[in-house]
């Protein structure tokens, strides 16, 4: 949460945060989110839009969030398997008792941070339980 909310960071990251765009290695095919400039194998990468539906692999619940996050406590952080890669993101629209490993989730566009009452608002991807 600390570095998401300055104008340069909001501006530079808007493409991948707004559209769920990751990087894909042209050599080994590894997909990463957030995107990286070079793959760990040394290969060049290209941008790729990631699937918006996935499965919650595991999660942890933060009950005592810091001052600025208190109104969103408890915060549920999830590890989500999108098939092509795994991403770490907040799980929303669910209370701790409604969350379980293996549940289907879908990407949503939400506020991910804001610089106090007067500063810039950062938007990005979180996940919510999928409803059939």
């Amino acid at each position, binding site marked *: 949460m600390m570095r998401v909310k300055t104008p340069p960071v909001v501006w530079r990251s808007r493409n991948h945060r707004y559209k769920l765009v990751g990087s894909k290695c042209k050599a080994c095919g590894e997909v990463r989110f957030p995107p990286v400039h070079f793959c760990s194998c040394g290969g060049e990468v290209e941008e790729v839009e990631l699937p918006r539906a996935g499965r919650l692999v595991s999660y942890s619940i933060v009950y005592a969030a810091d001052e600025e996050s208190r109104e969103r406590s408890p915060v549920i952080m999830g590890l989500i398997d999108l098939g092509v890669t795994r991403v770490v993101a907040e799980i*929303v629209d669910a209370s701790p008792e409604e969350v379980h490993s293996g549940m289907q989730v879908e990407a949503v*566009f939400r*506020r*991910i941070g804001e610089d106090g009452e007067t500063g810039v608002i950062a938007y990005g991807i979180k996940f919510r339980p999928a409803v059939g």
Partner: protein
Amino acid sequence: MPKPEALTGIHGWGAYVPRARISMVDIARQWGWSDHQWKALGMIEKAVAAYDEDATTMGLEAAQNAVRRAGIKGEEVGAVFFGSESKPYAVKPSATIIAEALGITPVTMASDLEFACRAASEGMRASIGLIASGMLKYTLVVGSDTAQASPGDVLEFTASSGAAAFVLGRAEGAAAVFEGSYTYVTDTPDFWRREGAPYPSHGEGFTGEPAYFKHIMEAVKGLLSELGLRPSDFSHAIFHQPNGKFPVRVGEMLGFRQEQLKVGLVTPQIGNTYNASALIGFARVLDYAKPGERVLLAPFGSGAGSDAYSIVITDAIEGKKGLAPTVDHYIRAKRAISYSQYVKMRRMLVK
């Protein structure tokens, strides 16, 4: 002059309603209102945006659904009009955030419009002209609000959150075609929010007759007279829905039957979503409408004004219905919350 030379239509529509719902009973209990006070409003429950949602995030999900149904690429959109009275930034457009996320930037018009609850409808009126003139191929119109209500105010029963969006373009291939439109505005101080004020104020008994009823009736009568149509020519009629009762009464006053209003009346289940109020109702009508049906749409905004549209459904609608979640999907996907959770989610608890 309600008819442009070239006809404009709706290529895609979409809605969004947040999942949390608070019941009227819980709000009434908190403030000691009696049951007949909320029953008189024709309300059951209302949708509440989560702490990390705002008019921009909700508007984007509705817009994603509309673009999916339109089956177009972002760069084909030439204007994004965002109508809201709960803009996350007082200065800095939401329209550019939505345009960026949908790949519409950079060669596009984009602006946020304000006219209480009818700002998005003004975007629709402007779009019809921009498209009919041949200047633009497609426009995206978004109405979205996290409606504010002062705790304990009677507005708290109805003020809710939601969004609707439409992709407009030439009539060819559209799911529905605008047959005519008509606007009626006057300077009427029925409801307002001053710069910097967190909650709106309203002119009590002044909000009904001289504002809502007068402007909608004049707009609809003007449209019908220009087009030579009668209420019985329409399969569906959707009016702005500040509560569950006003749209039913204005429909009756204009000579519409209950069955014509039924499909488009969504406020009792989700509350008054302000800029999305009539437009989510319209999106639900499109979810159900059949080719050949004629639809009357009349949004209203305080301050005050109303637009009336006559819209004819085409054969193309059937192929688009299943391309994105319906309004009913969002109405059904709900979670009950308590009054204290509501206060926390609307960020009124931690200061």
